[in-house]
């Protein structure tokens, strides 16, 4: 390794920080607009009606929703929060949130393209399968837990049936009408619904953008100031290499649509370490650590992170027997 392991330059930091925001903002905005539209136009019971009554089938189906409703990890958090507020079972919502950034056609194609010459079919298939498997597993675990123990109280309060709060108000709806936005929207016209969707989307966007800014800042420090060759000596040991790649992915907070290109460039690292990088990072990174805070309690986020880290590492290391 050449030079010091940490050298901070504000200009490089700001350049990296700005580029992450420029890349992330459009997708965050898209997620917020979808969320706002769902809020204003989709009745609360729709999701419950659409999903199969069988809980196992419902969770499994949620794990595949990303294939028809693709969303990167930034956007999926906002949409998931809205899904929960609209009455989608939490287990299904969490499953969708974790799987959508992996089990979607854009990520499949980018993974395949990035690993050309490095077993692209195997890498793409394993990434999608492990992502789906882990998301569904977390969904089943979440299904066993009480809602109040996992979700932020404000989210619990806003779920249909347990809702006590009012959503934001607009002048078009007199305050005396009270109640939540859904109740008021039922009697509102299209203009009112569109305005409600816009304001809901804006609130969601600014709320989540806060965490994107914080995550992007931390990522940019690591991205520019830390000498990434520090992990190079770990490449020869599968366990250390896998752990190092997962930590690196956590800190880099890349977009799941493009992280495969970065993983593929670590040619000296074992295949399974790169797989762990791709599976773990799309479900949990430093940016998501903050973003998940808009839905879940802190203890759950920590447990989710640790659980996913261990599960991904163990699964990927088990795959070393395949000599990939």
């Amino acid at each position, binding site marked *: 390794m050449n*030079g010091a392991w940490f050298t901070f*330059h*504000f*200009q*490089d930091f*700001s*350049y*990296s*920080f*700005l*580029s*992450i*925001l*420029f*890349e992330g*903002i*459009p997708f965050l*905005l898209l997620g917020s*607009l979808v969320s706002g539209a769902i809020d204003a136009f989709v009745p609360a019971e729709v999701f419950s009606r659409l999903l199969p009554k069988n809980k196992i089938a419902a969770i499994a189906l949620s794990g595949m929703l990303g294939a028809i409703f693709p969303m990167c990890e930034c956007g999926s958090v906002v949409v998931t*929060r809205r899904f929960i*507020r609209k009455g989608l079972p939490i287990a299904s919502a969490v499953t969708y949130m974790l799987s959508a950034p992996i089990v979607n056609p854009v990520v499949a194609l980018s993974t395949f*393209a*990035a690993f*050309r010459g490095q077993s692209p079919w195997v890498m793409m298939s394993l990434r999608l399968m492990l992502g789906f498997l882990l998301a569904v597993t977390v969904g089943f675990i979440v299904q066993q837990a009480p809602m109040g123990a996992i979700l932020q*109280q*404000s*989210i619990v309060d806003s779920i249909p049936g347990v809702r*006590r*709060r*009012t*959503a*934001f*108000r*607009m*002048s078009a709806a007199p305050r005396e009408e009270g109640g939540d936005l859904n109740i008021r929207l039922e009697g509102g016209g299209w203009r009112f619904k569109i*305005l409600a969707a*816009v*304001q809901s*989307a*804006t*609130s969601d966007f*600014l709320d989540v953008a*806060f965490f994107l*800014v914080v995550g992007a800042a931390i990522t*940019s420090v690591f*991205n*520019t100031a*830390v*000498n*990434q060759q520090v992990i190079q000596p770990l490449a020869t040991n599968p366990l250390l290499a896998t752990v190092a790649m997962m930590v690196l992915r956590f800190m*880099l907070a*890349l*977009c799941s*649509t*493009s992280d495969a*290109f*970065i*993983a*593929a*460039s670590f040619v000296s690292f074992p295949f399974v370490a790169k797989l762990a990088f791709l599976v773990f990072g799309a479900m949990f990174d430093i940016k998501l650590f903050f973003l998940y805070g808009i839905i879940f309690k802190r203890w759950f986020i920590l447990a989710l992170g640790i659980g996913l880290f261990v599960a991904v590492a163990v699964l990927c290391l088990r795959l070393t027997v395949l000599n990939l």
Partner: protein
Amino acid sequence: MTKAFSRWLPCATLFAWSFILLYFYFSGRIHALLHPIFRPFALVAGAIMLLLAACFLFIPATAECCTDEGCGHALGRGIGGRLLTFLILLLPMCAAAAFSPGGYGASTILNRGVINDASALGGAGAKRAAALASSAAAAASSAAAAANTSSVTEPALPTQDGSTPPPQQAQAQQPEPTDYLHKSKDGNIILQVIDLLYAAQDTSLRGDFENKRVEFIGQYMPDTVNNINGKRFKVVRMLMVCCAADARPVAAVVETEQPSNIPEMSWVKVVGDATFPIEGGRNLAVVKATSVTVTDPPEETMLY
């Protein structure tokens, strides 16, 4: 006061972000930040944020969500929380937009590890490599076709003394294998740093470039690795996949007899002969420079 925060601060934030996105897009500064595929998204996002800000500004709405007990926006409650939220949303982005340069400094490039082996790039830059390879293949097949056509021997006219001269072949019309490459007025092959890296890996491409006069630009960096005799430096370009945050530095080695006093990270134009000596068990792209001149940065500072 709370109403003012509810209405004006989101509006100001959206306007500021929208302005920054649109300014970067229309001024061209976005070229250094995003891959061309992602640039239109930034434009659309900027325009939508402008609309959202206008909605907040002109349509009476109180957005009282964050005044409620059960507000889901964690930092939205209370004036202090709102102010902190919007300062964090506004200040870092504005500061970054104001101070961000058009590229990375030397320390970040070194921290990321300079790549001079195309196999370390994975699929990144593969589009460029594929284009190069297909152009080379197309040129080779057209050269072969031309050679076949020209190999048809034309009957020679008898000379005045009655002897028959050797058959004439249209050798002059046969294209060079490197005709698919773009050339400068001086006849130098104009290429990118990454082309040299791919050529070092590929036997046929290597044949097309080897000992040919080439011309390329990049950023000057001293070479501290492959530089025993002190005559070498690196010419670096950043290879971007999505955005500048994921860009990785790729470099060709340049060898020159002239001592160089070029400032680090300056943009330079190198003219020289491409060679691919075996070093460290593989072919390394080394350009023996005949001239190295400081130049302006290109419009697209990144490679894709």
